[in-house]
């Protein structure tokens, strides 16, 4: 007690008197001034950097326990290192071997392509564009890009990003263009399953992130995780670009067709850039007299196609834009017509989709078709490309009316 009193009484003014409050007030003011300055800008950044440098030893000491722990990690036994080394060498050899094989395959592929004199190599003319805005309407998946007519953008041009196909241009303005994404419910894109070469059409589901492959035969060889690539049929989309990964298969009992759902590989709503691709088949294929009357049409499918034709007729704009192809895609795309076969009531939507699927792939693209590995397991619907490949020339005009006279369909395997 005595000592306490004595101690505090010895310096009463400096430790507790107004001096203390004054000190506090001064330092607090300086602190606040520092905060204001620091918050306002970088005027004291240099002082801060110096202070950080001066405090570096302290930080290092504080980090010492951690680095000690890391040191423990790096103290591995010789055995471990040797084992790892062996493992890595083994893997290296394995990969080298695969690489050799890849090179030979590449060379072989080139030779075969040369033999076929096909133009299926990836197009090299691209133009990068910025996404200017996206549609806020949840049911329309469109984006506006900063490239337009003056950059040579054309309607129907394919749009890709670093990961896959994004969509296609549907409207060209002088300096901008509007693109429809592949997830839009109005969009269809011809795809093939990369693993098997199975050809089909992927339609947008409209939920912003899914693709639907509704026209798969019941026994189609499709698995969850399969990669879908653009098949290039129709000529609108260049072949070989990734489109999606299948994440679910639905096979309702009693239905003829199985449906697969896929996520697009492209980052549809994330990136700010997109690549416009000049496909080699972009020119209106008026002179392509590839036939499309497909032998394996069903009666109901024909009905659906009629409706599709009507739809085209009813929408002159659409019909006009897809004029060259408009007539045939309806017949050309076998897939969209199918559901009609199963559910007559849904014929109309199916027809609509057929029309839009057609929009996705208006031109018959004779060139890529032969290259496509065969649709081994592809039954009726899949054989469309095959039929397209066989030139049974009919004038397109004839063909537009033709569907009805097509021969009896072969039923898809159940």
């Amino acid at each position: 007690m005595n000592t306490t009193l004595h101690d505090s009484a010895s310096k009463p003014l400096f430790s507790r008197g107004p001096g203390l409050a004054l000190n506090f007030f001064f330092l607090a003011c300086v602190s606040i001034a520092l905060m204001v300055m620091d918050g306002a800008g970088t005027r004291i950044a240099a002082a801060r950097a110096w202070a950080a440098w001066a405090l570096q030893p302290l930080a290092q000491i504080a980090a010492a326990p951690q680095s000690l722990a890391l040191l423990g990690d790096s103290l591995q036994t010789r055995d471990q290192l040797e084992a790892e080394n062996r493992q890595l060498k083994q893997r290296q050899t394995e990969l080298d071997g695969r690489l050799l094989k890849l090179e030979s395959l590449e060379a072989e592929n080139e030779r075969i392509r040369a033999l076929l004199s096909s133009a299926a190599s990836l197009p090299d003319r691209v133009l990068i564009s910025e996404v200017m805005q996206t549609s806020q309407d949840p049911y329309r998946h469109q984006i506006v890009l900063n490239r337009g007519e003056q950059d040579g953008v054309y309607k129907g041009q394919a749009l890709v990003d670093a990961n896959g196909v994004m969509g296609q241009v549907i409207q060209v303005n002088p300096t901008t263009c509007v693109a429809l994404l592949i997830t839009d419910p109005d969009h269809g894109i011809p795809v093939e399953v990369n693993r098997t070469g199975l050809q089909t059409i992927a339609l947008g589901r409209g939920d912003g992130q899914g693709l639907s492959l509704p026209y798969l035969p019941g026994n189609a060889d499709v698995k969850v995780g399969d990669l879908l690539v653009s098949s290039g049929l129709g000529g609108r989309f260049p072949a070989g670009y990734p489109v999606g990964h299948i994440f679910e298969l639905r096979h309702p009992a009693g239905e003829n067709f199985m449906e697969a759902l896929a996520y697009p590989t492209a980052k549809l709503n994330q990136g700010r850039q997109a690549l416009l691709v000049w496909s080699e088949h972009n020119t209106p294929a008026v002179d392509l007299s590839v036939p499309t009357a497909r032998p394996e049409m069903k009666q109901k499918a024909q009905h659906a196609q009629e409706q599709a034709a009507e739809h085209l007729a009813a929408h002159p704009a659409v019909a006009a834009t897809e004029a060259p192809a408009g007539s045939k895609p309806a017949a050309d795309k076998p897939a969209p017509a199918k559901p009609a076969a199963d559910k007559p009531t849904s014929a109309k939507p199916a027809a609509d989709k057929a029309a839009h699927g057609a929009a996705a792939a208006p031109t018959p693209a004779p060139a890529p078709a032969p290259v496509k590995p065969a649709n081994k397991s592809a039954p009726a619907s899949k054989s469309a490309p095959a039929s397209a490949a066989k030139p049974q020339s009919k004038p397109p005009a004839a063909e537009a009316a033709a569907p009805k006279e097509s021969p009896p369909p072969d039923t898809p395997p159940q």
Partner: protein
Amino acid sequence: MSRGSLFPVFTLTLLLALILQMVALPDVIAPFRPEWVALTLVYWAYATADKPVLLAAWLSGLALDVLFNSLLGQHALALLTVTFLVRRLRGSLIIFPLPQVALALSAAWVLYAFLMFWIDGLTHHSAVPSLRWLPVISTTLIWPLAALVMDRFRAQPKLRRLT
């Protein structure tokens, strides 16, 4: 002379507190890290009458600001305020036994946490509010222990223990 002999201890404890404040902890217990620097400064403000605790609080606060890359002056102001109040109320605090002091000082930790929270809010710097108050608990619990340990380090005649 007492100042000279105590000074290294004073400085060393503060440096140690700064280091403890920075040492990496497992994620689970990291939110419970006591406010070592505030705890040490408050101890010195409470236990001694002649240490330049305000200046020390301000400097170590600036050091914390630099080390944690917070707004320059944020820790400084909070530490300064808490230290000043404890030093100011020292006369009332020292007459109570240690456990009661520890309990009373929890108000100081709350004030400290609130000041940090408030300045963060003023500068729109978001943080998880619930995690902000966990150090109050841990600091309150650990302060008596730390006080006893530092008492041992101070090779001084016991100034304040009344009982």
